[in-house]
């Protein structure tokens, strides 16, 4: 072997380094539940990512097939457990569609208000958890918690439970709003807006936050569509796609609101799009309050046991994380033959590997956070 460094270098094709695997989760502070991914890192750079899911699998779809239509409500609350009402909405719409069930108008307005409040709940959870991922030492978490607690308190007044209200019914909602609902909701909206302003001050304007998030894992519109991204993830790329506008359901056609979009599809856009969406939700709720008609909140013609002879439907709604679709098939009896959930978290999560490979370990955590997954929805 020659002693000259150039020739020795020539014989070694490259300097060998060994990649290291790091296990992240299922019990890791940044995995938002029980998600697990195995990162292969070269120094600090991620070269491979292998996600593992299923730690929270509860057999939702099978359970639904074996329960009465109304009994299953509670399971569906627990899919996107950060916004239970939004899931109830999709489930009820699916059942109503195959059963041809009418919903009173007042109930529709109440539903939309509750769904938008849930959207705010979910987005606030995102701001808080995402801030913690970026490293703001729990301050963002507590900021988010203030508004979330207030909304949950209101949910408790409305439905008797905080996280899993089981408030919707096929054909309306369980009961009418409490008497003081208008002042309560208006006060809540003010508080929520204040909360958003606080987040603006804490995160949006922070140099380090911007530095960490901008140009991080930008996703093009084409890629986003090919990977099946929906919801804020898709809108961050600049595409104006929102089922509330594009395939209007319920009373959304009567309401005026904007669809905020980003431009680059990077992590910062995903964050700011959610901020704007939460703000738009407050506008929607305000309009609902103004337009809320009087009347019944539950279809009175429904039998005690809901039986649906034949029917097949796919209902998709704009869930808090994206397209929340429910496929329902009935073949008689008081149980559905098949219920299938198209969960946005699951579809968004499937693009994780493509986004994190090549980034730093610290960024991989942020990218995972920016997907805003809920494991209850991923694992069903």
């Amino acid at each position, binding site marked *: 072997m020659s002693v000259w460094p150039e020739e020795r270098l020539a014989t070694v094709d*490259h*300097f060998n380094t*060994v990649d*290291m695997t790091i296990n992240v989760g299922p019990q890791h502070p940044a995995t938002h539940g029980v998600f697990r991914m195995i990162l292969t890192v070269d*120094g600090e750079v991620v070269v491979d990512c292998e996600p593992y899911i299923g730690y929270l699998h509860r057999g939702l779809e099978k359970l639904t097939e074996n329960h009465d239509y109304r009994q299953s409500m509670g399971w569906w609350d627990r899919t996107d457990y950060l916004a239970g009402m939004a899931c109830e909405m999709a489930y009820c719409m699916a059942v109503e569609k195959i059963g041809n069930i009418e919903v009173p108008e007042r109930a529709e307005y109440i539903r939309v208000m509750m769904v938008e409040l849930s959207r705010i709940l979910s987005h606030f959870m995102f701001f808080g958890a995402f801030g913690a991922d970026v490293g703001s030492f729990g301050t963002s978490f507590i900021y988010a918690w203030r508004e979330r607690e207030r909304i949950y308190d209101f949910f408790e007044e409305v439905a008797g439970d905080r996280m899993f209200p089981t408030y919707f019914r096929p054909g309306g909602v369980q009961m009418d709003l409490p008497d003081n609902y208008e002042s309560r909701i208006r006060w809540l909206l003010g508080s929520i807006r204040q909360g958003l302003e606080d987040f603006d001050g804490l995160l949006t304007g922070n140099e380090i936050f911007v530095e960490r998030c901008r140009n991080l894992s930008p996703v093009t519109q084409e890629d986003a569509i090919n990977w099946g991204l929906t919801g804020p993830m898709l809108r961050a790329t600049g595409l104006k796609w929102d089922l509330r506008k594009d395939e209007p359901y319920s009373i959304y056609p009567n309401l005026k609101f904007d669809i905020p979009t980003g431009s680059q599809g990077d992590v910062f856009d995903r964050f700011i799009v959610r901020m704007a969406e939460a703000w738009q939700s407050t506008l929607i709720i305000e309009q609902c309050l103004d337009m809320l008609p009087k009347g019944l909140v539950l279809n009175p013609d429904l039998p005690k046991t809901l039986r649906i002879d034949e029917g097949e439907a796919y209902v998709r709604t704009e869930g808090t994380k994206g397209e929340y679709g429910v496929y329902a098939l009935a073949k008689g009896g008081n149980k559905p033959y098949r219920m299938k959930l198209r969960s946005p978290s699951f579809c968004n999560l499937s693009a994780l590997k493509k986004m994190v490979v090549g980034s730093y370990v610290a960024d991989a955590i942020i990218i995972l956070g920016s997907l805003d997954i809920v494991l209850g929805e991923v694992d069903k």
Partner: protein
Amino acid sequence: MATEVLWWIFAVLITGAGAGVVFSRSVLHSAIFLIGTMAGIGAMYIFLTVEFLALVQFLIYGGAVTVLILLALMLTRADPSGRPEKVNGAQMPFALLVGGGLLAALVGVAVGTSWPGNNDDEPTNIDITAVSDRLFADFGAPFILISALLLVALVGAIILARQEEGE
């Protein structure tokens, strides 16, 4: 008297740590023993009342050089558990030869030199201003030249390392 006792304690510690560097079977342990040796030598300088030198020893050898060694260990080993590793036996004769030769040369120099200085058991404290006068006034030009040389070496090393990555 107390200084003398301490001197012997530290002498034993340093020699022991030095032996640890050579004989321990794990590279990690060797590196940590090396830190002990360096820190012990720094303490020795304090007994000689050359505090400035002692602090430089702590800063450069205790803090920086050994940290670099440990960092290199971390970056190059796939298994972080610190289990003993095989020492390359083929190089042992050469290492012995070099080590023995260096030891002989150092002992020879130490014994053969007539050391200046006072013998009244009271080492003189060298003022830091004297050190800086020497460094920046008397030998200013060589000092700057060496700094420039080191800087060039640093930049060169970065360039070489970058090329290897294909940039």
